[in-house]
C-alpha cells in the first residue's frame, strides 16, 4: 500500500521536475539555464562519487581523471573528421580515431564505457591498498591523466585541447542522465550489493568474514561510479564546447568533495540537495568577490574571497556538522509525509 503510494509520488515528482524543465527552457534566461545544466552534471558526478566515497567508504580522489576521460572520448567521437583534421595542428591524430564519428548519445555511452574500463583496470592496484593510500594513489591517477592529456598529443591534441565541440547538451540531456544515474545508483544502494558496500564501509574485515568478496563489491561501486562520471564528463564537454587538460584539475574533485560532505557522506538524496546548494550558492557567493553596499557601508570586494569561504566552509562542516545535511539517511516519502502531518498538528 505504502510502497505503491511512494512509487507514485516518486514518478509524480519526476514528472513535475520535467514539467519545470520544460517551463524553464522556454522562459528562463540563458544564464539560469546554464546553472541548471551545471547542477544536473555536478549532481551526476557527486552522486557517483558518493557511491564510492560515502556508501562504500573508500576515500578516493579520482573524479577529475574519470571526468577527463569521458569528456575526451565522447568529444573526439562527436567531432567530425574534418574538424579533427583542422584542429590537430601539432601532430595529426592517430588512425583510426581521426575518422571515427558517432552521434551524441552513442558517444556519451562509449565515453562512459571507456571510463568504466579504465576504472576496472585501475581498481587492481588501487584496491590492493586500503584507506589512506587509496586517496593518494587516486589523487596521483588524476595527475597522471592530466599529464597524459598534455603529452599524448596525437590523441588529445595536447595543451591545445579540443575546440568547437557541438553544444548538444541541453536541459533534457543533462537532467535525463542525472535522473537516470540517480535511479540506477539508488537501486544499487538499496539492494544486497548496496548492503555489502555499506558493510565494507563499516568494517571491511567483518564483511569479508561474512562471505563478501570485498574486491568485487568495491569494483562494482568503482566501475559504476566511473561510468557515470565519464558520461557526465561528456555532457560537460558538450556544454562548454571546449576542453583542455586544465579543465580537469584537482579543483574539480575538491568541489565534488564539498558537495558530498555538505550532503552527508553516504546519502544520495543529501547529495542532490547539496549539489543544488553548492552550485547555486557558489554563484550567489560571487557577491563576496565584489564591492558590497550594505545600507550605507561599502565593503571593498576581495576577488578570491569565495574560494577562502569554501575552504573554511569545508573545515567547519567537518568540525561541527560532520553529518552534513542528511547524514547517512535518505529522504523517504514516509518520513516526509510524517513530517508534514506533524507540522499540521502543530
Amino acid at each position, binding site marked *: 500500500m505504502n510502497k505503491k503510494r511512494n512509487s507514485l509520488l516518486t514518478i509524480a515528482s519526476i514528472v513535475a521536475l520535467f514539467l519545470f524543465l520544460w517551463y524553464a527552457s522556454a522562459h528562463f*534566461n*540563458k*544564464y*539560469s539555464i*546554464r*546553472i541548471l545544466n*551545471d547542477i544536473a552534471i555536478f549532481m551526476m558526478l557527486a552522486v557517483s562519487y558518493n557511491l564510492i566515497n560515502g556508501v562504500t567508504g573508500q576515500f578516493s580522489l579520482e573524479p577529475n581523471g574519470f571526468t577527463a576521460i569521458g569528456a575526451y572520448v565522447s568529444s573526439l567521437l562527436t567531432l567530425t573528421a574534418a574538424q579533427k583534421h583542422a584542429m590537430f*595542428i*601539432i601532430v595529426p591524430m592517430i588512425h583510426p580515431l581521426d575518422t571515427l564519428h558517432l552521434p551524441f548519445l552513442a558517444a556519451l555511452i562509449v565515453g562512459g564505457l571507456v571510463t568504466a574500463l579504465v576504472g576496472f583496470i585501475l581498481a587492481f592496484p588501487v584496491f590492493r591498498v586500503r584507506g589512506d593510500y587509496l586517496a593518494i594513489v587516486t589523487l596521483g591517477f588524476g595527475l597522471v591523466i592530466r*599529464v597524459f592529456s*598534455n*603529452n599524448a598529443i596525437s590523441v588529445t591534441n*595536447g*595543451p*591545445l*585541447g579540443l*575546440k*568547437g565541440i557541438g*553544444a548538444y547538451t541541453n536541459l533534457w540531456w543533462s537532467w535525463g542522465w542525472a535522473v537516470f544515474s540517480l535511479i540506477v545508483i539508488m537501486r544499487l544502494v538499496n539492494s544486497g550489493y548496496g548492503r555489502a558496500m555499506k558493510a565494507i564501509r563499516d568494517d571491511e574485515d567483518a564483511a569479508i568474514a561474512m562471505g563478501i568478496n570485498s574486491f568485487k563489491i568495491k569494483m562494482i561501486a568503482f566501475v559504476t561510479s566511473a561510468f557515470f562520471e565519464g558520461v557526465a564528463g561528456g555532457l*560537460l564537454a558538450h*556544454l*562548454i*564546447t*571546449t*576542453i*583542455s*587538460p*586544465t*579543465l580537469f*584539475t584537482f*579543483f574539480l574533485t575538491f568541489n565534488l568533495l564539498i558537495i558530498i560532505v555538505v550532503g552527508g557522506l553516504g546519502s544520495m538524496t543529501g547529495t542532490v*540537495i547539496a549539489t543544488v*546548494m553548492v552550485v547555486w*550558492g557558489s*554563484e*550567489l*557567493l*560571487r*557577491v*563576496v*568577490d*565584489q*564591492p*558590497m*553596499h*550594505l545600507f550605507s557601508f561599502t565593503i571593498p*570586494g576581495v*576577488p*578570491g574571497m*569565495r*574560494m577562502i569561504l569554501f575552504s573554511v566552509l569545508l573545515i567547519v*562542516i567537518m568540525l561541527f*556538522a560532520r*553529518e*552534513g*545535511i542528511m547524514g547517512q539517511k535518505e529522504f523517504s516519502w514516509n518520513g516526509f509525509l510524517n513530517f508534514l502531518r506533524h507540522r499540521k498538528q502543530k
Partner: protein
Amino acid sequence: MRFFGRLMFVLTVLLFAGLASSSSFAKAVKVGVVLPMTGPIASFGQSDWKGIKIAASLKPTVLNGRKLKLILLDNKGDKVETANAVSRLIFKNKVSAVIGAVASGNTLSGAPIAEKAHVPMVTPASTNPLVTKGKKFISRVCFIDPFQGKVAAKYVYNNLHARTAAVIVDMAQDYSVGLARFFIKAFKKMGGKIVGNTFIQTGDQDFSAQIAVVKAHHPDVIYMPTYYQELALFARQARQFGLKQTIMAGDGASEEALIKVGGKAVEGLSFTNHFDPKAAVTPLGKKFVKLYRAKYHEDPSAMAALGADAYFVVANAINRAGSTNRIKINKAIRATKGFKGVTGIITLVNGDPVKSAVIQKVKDGKFVYVTTVNP
C-alpha cells in the same frame, strides 16, 4: 536539519546583500570583466586587473558623463566558471560588453555564449588564432601567435644571426605550443635549422635534464616561448651549467618577476612584446605608465597594458556607438581604426589587431627597448 536552516539563513542574507549591491547603479553603463583572480593562472588575471583599474581611473565615464561600471567576476582559470561568468554577465547583469578572459582556452569557452547572445567580447591577452576565427562578436587587443612566432624567428635570424636554434616548449600551455610551432615554421623557411626540441611543463622547477639536451646540440640560440617563472629558473640553471647562448622568448616573459627571479642569468634575454613602457608611443600610453608607476611603484607589464587597452577600446567604442546597444557597440569595436592605445596604434581587422610588436631585452637588470617590428 538545524544546520540546513542556518545555512539557508546565511544564503538568504547573502542573496539580499547581492540584490542591494546590484540595484544601486541604475544609470551606469555596465561592462563585465572575466579574469582568473584565483587558481593557477591568477597572476595574469591580477596583472590585467591592475591595468584595467588604472585605465578606469583615467577614463571613468562614457557617453557624456555616465559612469562606466565594471563588474569583475573571477573564473578561477577554469572553463566551466568562465562559461558561467560570461552568461551571468550577459543574462543577469545585462552588461553592454565583456572584457576577458586571459588564457585562450578559457576565452573559447565563454566566446560561443557571447557570440550567440550578440554581445561584444574583447579579450586582452588570448593570442590563439581560433579565439576570433569565424566569430562576429569576439575581438582582441593583442597580436596573435603566428605573428609573434614569425617576428621572433625574423629577429633571431636577421639581428642575432642565428642559424641553428633549440626550442623548449611548455607542454602545458597552448600558448607556448602555438608560438613554438609558428617560430619553427618561419625559422625553417628562412633557412634556419632546429636542433634539439625539448619540453617542460608549467610549474617545473628543475631543468637540468633539458639543459643537458640543449648543451649536446650547441645551438646558436635558444627559443623558449614560456611564461616568466619557468624562463627565469631555466636561465639561472642554464647559466650555472655553462650554457651561454642567447635566450629568445615571447610576451610571456614580460613581468618584473622575470628579472627579480632570474637576476644576472636573464641578462641579454630577448623577447617579443606588445609594448615597452619606456617607449610608449601614444599620449595615452605615457599617461597610463605614469599613473601606473605612481600607484604600484613598478613598470606595467604587457598584461596590465593589454588589460588597459581592452578597457580603452571598449570605452572608446561605446562613445562612438553613442548608445549602450550591444550590437552597435560591437560594430564600433570592430571598426576601431588607428586608435591610439597604450600598446600602440590599434586597428582591428576581423577582430584581430594589426599592430606592431616590439623586441625587448634585459639589460642591467631592466627591460630595454631594442626595436619595433611592424606587421
